[in-house]
């Protein structure tokens, strides 16, 4: 079977289909794999053991694992927008036509110039960055930072938008089993029999976990369980679904891969499940640990379990002559599997002083040489294993023998995968007999009811054999081995890798301990142990054991670093899901949105609304369009889409009393048929919203809020009604979207509306600050005579479905009047010309109405309103508070927005003292000059004074304090 590579075995491979070869490319080289292969198995079959370079030293690396814990074999996948860096070759299914590239090497994987680092790695010890880049200070910006930036990061970020789609889905499940191995399937069956809804999430494409590989009748046991579960309607078995994190109250996130294998499937690539689990059974198995011997990172040195996975699952030989090195019985399975596949096992090196269990006996019976108290002193070979140097484990590394081999299968024991258990607070116990941290069932993560929300079964619980389900025979005890050999020299420790991706060695952790890094969390950050993309899955336990040894303390005293989600990296696509492009945010549109769009409106986002900022015509700039719109309104008539203004109905016997509490002014005395402008403050006294209230009937008001304030003010009203004055009889309703509202503004506004007919809008019938109900152009309407521009103005509200109809009729009827639609910028400038404040410009959450000269809008008669008590605090009544004034630029330049007026002297930080700032600033087309408003200390008492506004890189601006009303000070125009 050389067609898929020289290292493909002639038989075996339970997951591959030899009838379907798949072509793919690696660094431009055309190769062939088989359906069912992972990228790693396909590359190994082709003899490509070298798959990447480590991050710090650019050391050559091959895969050490066969699953999600793999730290080395990270590749770039795909092209263009579909390019993805750091894809784990051991979990990426092979797809026909796949293009893959190696990372972190230049000019090529085999001849990497950066690998010079590895000759120098004695000079790159733990904390290298901290130590080196401290001094001289000036070097950081110009020397160190540019160099680090160029070499930082593993892999390259894609430069184009991701063409794939992603989605999320919510599920509510009684019991979720994480892990589709034999323990998980058994637990699922038990739970399902009680009638619960049960989901089983398996991160790989196959159920069964290690059982089919490790136990003779394993596949049959798994198949029987699957068959039984599939027949149950309350069971949901999901493959390719990786549980990434367990959060408060049983909130479990899981990523299901739907089309990773087929970008052209036309379905979402991945789905993020947001599951509410009644209970989570963690059946996530265990991960094998490497052994720390010199040269343990040479390509060809692999975990023993990975070696037998490649043989058994994919029919691939990781090597032809495999040396097994172990401190436990389990690794003997690898030796036996290798023999079964026709490979050579020249020796098994067992660090223990004796090896007498069933598995070692079976190995001996097959004629394998088993050495006890045996260890590896070193590996001969750079880019691949050539030979293994043997020594006594109890010694200091004197080489006793050298054995030719091309692969080393190592096992340092197993660690339960406790990530999910630990994410939300589950605690661990150290087991001396098993040399591992296992979940403490008495200290589980707890849920909303205070009871355990998760439990562990199988290997994840510390029951590594799962003998109940697998029928495995007992094994003899593991012997902890954290450094091999026991008395290894300092020189050997420089080549013992703990974190393979980040190149953290035993020597680094020992150095950190020596330098005072006693906390495991500090050591992690100082050495970068466990900070790589695998998040320490293979390195953490070995690292903290070495740290414990260096500190001469038991392992539990050192403890573990915090387990944080996600278990394996998530794509940003699944987190964003549908929230991209058009659906990034809900975009709120008024009934006239389409009309504005057709007229070329330039949009301004206001909250989630889009409002026309202006309607540029032809080659007009925005400023020119705004100026034209304002002149047209002031000369004749214009229309503004005011539908976005908040509209809240407040009704009930206590509605007047209630509104008197909400507003600073008096609303209860407003006569029916009239409107009144009002201010809303919070309990801090600060102005938060404003608008016009209309009294609709004896017990009903309709209050307008700002565009962004509708939901907030409705919520504010309901808060006080529900939580403070719950015995007051008031109902509110947010009817913002029921109405389209059109401001018809300008000296010809009445003429225009009268053409449409239906209502008497004369000054007598509808005076300023009055409202009336009737029909305009046959459409039921409420007309409010209010003005935010200073002009004669009618705000016409009609049912939303008829808003566009009225808008179009107005424009048809007003053609000869030069009727002009105007946008928010024209509205802003016209209100500023009139000295009207704008929430968010003149206010910033620290401004009270008194600052704005609006004491006229604050009732003196009321005992109480929200904010009144706060406005009596000493800081609020301080005469030094900045107050609203107009500002006239002296040299014709428009003042920049937000600039500060300086005062004499400097503050404690040596900065100029300030005495005011600009809050609104425009060029007024009406007055043909810049106008501005600002808040200035003692401003209203300082009319005529000139203030200086320094701006970096420019000549200081100078402006004279003036009345904020720049236009029509008498207010006669609004009377039409």
């Amino acid at each position: 079977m050389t067609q898929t590579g020289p290292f493909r075995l002639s038989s075996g491979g339970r997951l591959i289909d030899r009838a379907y070869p798949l072509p793919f490319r690696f660094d431009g080289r055309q190769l062939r794999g088989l359906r069912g292969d992972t990228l790693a198995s396909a590359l190994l079959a082709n003899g490509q053991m070298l798959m990447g370079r480590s991050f710090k030293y650019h050391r050559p690396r091959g895969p050490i694992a066969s699953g999600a814990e793999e730290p080395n074999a990270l590749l770039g996948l795909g092209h263009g927008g579909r390019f993805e860096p750091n894809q784990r070759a051991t979990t990426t299914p092979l797809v026909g036509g796949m293009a893959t590239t190696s990372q972190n090497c230049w000019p090529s994987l085999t001849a990497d110039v950066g690998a010079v680092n590895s000759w120098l790695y004695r000079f790159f010890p733990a904390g290298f960055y901290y130590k080196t880049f401290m001094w001289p200070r000036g070097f950081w910006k110009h020397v160190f930072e540019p160099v680090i930036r160029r070499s930082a990061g593993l892999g390259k970020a894609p430069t184009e938008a991701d063409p794939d789609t992603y989605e999320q889905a919510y599920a509510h499940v009684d019991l979720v089993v994480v892990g589709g191995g034999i323990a998980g399937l058994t637990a699922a069956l038990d739970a399902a029999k009680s009638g619960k809804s049960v989901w089983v999430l398996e991160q790989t494409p196959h159920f069964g976990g290690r059982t089919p590989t490790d136990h003779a009748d394993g596949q049959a046991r798994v198949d029987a369980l699957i068959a039984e579960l599939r027949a149950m309607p309350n069971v949901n078995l999901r493959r390719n679904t990786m549980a990434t994190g367990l959060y408060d109250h049983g909130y479990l996130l899981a990523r299901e891969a739907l089309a990773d294998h087929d970008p052209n499937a036309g379905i979402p690539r991945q789905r993020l499940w947001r599951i509410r689990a009644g209970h989570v059974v963690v059946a996530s198995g265990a991960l094998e640990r490497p052994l720390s011997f010199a040269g343990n990172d040479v390509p060809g040195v692999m975990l023993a379990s990975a070696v037998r996975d490649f043989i058994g699952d994919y029919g691939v030989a990781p090597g032809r002559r495999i040396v097994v090195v172990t401190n436990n019985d389990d690794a003997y399975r690898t030796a036996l599997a290798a023999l079964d596949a026709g490979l050579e096992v020249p020796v098994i090196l067992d660090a223990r002083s004796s090896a007498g269990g069933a598995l070692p006996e079976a190995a001996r019976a097959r004629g394998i040489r088993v050495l006890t108290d045996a260890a590896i002193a070193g590996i001969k070979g750079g880019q691949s294993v050539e030979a293994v140097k043997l020594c006594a484990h109890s010694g200091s590394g004197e080489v006793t023998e050298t054995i030719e081999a091309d692969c080393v299968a190592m096992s340092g024991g197993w660690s339960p995968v406790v990530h999910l258990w630990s994410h939300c607070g589950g605690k661990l116990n150290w087991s001396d007999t098993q040399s591992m941290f296992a979940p403490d069932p008495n200290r589980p993560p707890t849920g909303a009811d205070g009871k355990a929300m998760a439990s562990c079964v199988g290997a994840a619980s510390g029951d590594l054999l799962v003998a109940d389900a697998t029928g495995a025979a007992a094994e003899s005890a593991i012997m902890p081995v954290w450094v091999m050999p026991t008395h290894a020299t300092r020189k050997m420790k420089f080549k013992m890798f703990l974190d393979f991706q980040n190149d953290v060695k035993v020597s680094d952790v020992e150095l950190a301990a020596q330098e005072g890094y006693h906390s495991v969390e500090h050591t992690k950050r100082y050495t970068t142990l466990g900070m790589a993309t695998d998040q320490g899955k293979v390195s953490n336990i070995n690292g903290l054991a070495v740290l414990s040894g260096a500190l001469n303390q038991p392992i539990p005293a050192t403890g573990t670093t915090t387990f944080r989600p996600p278990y394996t990296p998530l794509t940003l696509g699944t987190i964003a899901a549908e929230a991209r492009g058009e659906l990034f945010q809900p975009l709120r549109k008024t009934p006239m949105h389409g009309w504005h769009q057709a007229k070329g409106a330039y949009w301004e986002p206001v909250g989630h609304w889009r409002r026309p900022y202006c309607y540029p015509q032809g080659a007009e700039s925005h400023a020119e369009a705004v100026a034209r719109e304002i002149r047209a309104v002031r000369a004749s008539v214009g229309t503004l889409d005011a539908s976005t203004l908040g509209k809240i109905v407040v009704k009930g016997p206590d509605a007047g009393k209630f509104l008197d509490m909400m507003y600073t002014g008096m609303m209860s005395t407003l006569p029916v048929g009239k409107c009144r402008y009002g201010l809303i403050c919070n309990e801090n006294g600060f102005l938060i919203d404003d608008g016009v209230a209309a009294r609709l009937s004896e017990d009903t008001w309709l209050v307008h809020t700002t565009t962004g304030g509708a939901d907030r003010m409705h919520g504010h009203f309901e808060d006080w009604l529900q939580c403070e004055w719950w015995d007051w009889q008031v109902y509110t309703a947010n009817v913002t979207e029921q109405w389209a509202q059109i401001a018809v503004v300008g000296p010809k506004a009445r003429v225009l509306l009268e053409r449409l007919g239906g209502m008497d809008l004369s000054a007598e019938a509808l005076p300023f600050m009055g409202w009336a109900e009737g029909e305009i152009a046959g459409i039921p309407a409420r007309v409010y005579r209010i003005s935010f521009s200073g002009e004669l103005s009618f705000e016409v509200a009609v049912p939303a479905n008829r808003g566009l109809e009225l808008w179009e009729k107005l424009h048809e009827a007003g053609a000869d009047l030069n009727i002009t639609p105007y946008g928010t910028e024209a509205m802003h400038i016209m209100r500023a010309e009139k000295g009207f404040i704008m929430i968010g410009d003149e206010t910033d959450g620290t401004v009270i109405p008194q600052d704005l000269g609006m004491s006229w809008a604050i009732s003196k008669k009321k005992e109480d309103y929200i904010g009144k008590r706060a406005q009596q605090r000493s800081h609020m009544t301080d005469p030094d508070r900045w107050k609203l004034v107009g500002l006239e630029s002296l040299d014709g330049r428009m003042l920049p927005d937000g600039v500060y007026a300086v005062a004499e002297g400097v503050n404690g930080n040596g900065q100029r003292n300030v005495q005011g700032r600009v809050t609104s600033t425009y060029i007024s087309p009406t007055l043909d000059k810049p106008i501005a408003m600002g808040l200035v200390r003692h401003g209203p008492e300082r009319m005529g004074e000139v203030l200086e506004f320094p701006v970096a890189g420019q000549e200081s601006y100078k402006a004279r304090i003036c009345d904020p009303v720049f236009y029509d000070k008498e207010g006669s125009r609004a009377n039409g």
Partner: protein
Amino acid sequence: MLTLTCPCCGVAAEETELHAGGEAHLKRFGPGSSDAEFEGYLFARKNPRGVHFERWRHAYGCGKWFLAARCTATLQVFATYSAQTPYPPAEVVAAIRAARPDWQPDWTETPTTPAESPNA
């Protein structure tokens, strides 16, 4: 991410459907109150590690405010209950005591029923 059952509509809503409103059972001080009283009302919050009472609004739901008694350390929810009560009612206190026998209420006033609002 929390799940709280809204006592007003019976829905078990997740945190994204809710709006958090800070500490519950604050007594409002308005005009006429001392600076110290007003400062306490406006700014002084308990922020305990353990039993806490909070305001929540079922914003993406029935729109009603309700109160929750929960443990800020373990996130155990002892009860959710009506916002129209100046102090946690007896059954809420009982539910807390069942889970936290050592916990003591820190208010001394007699709980009133909703009909006897202190602001009526």
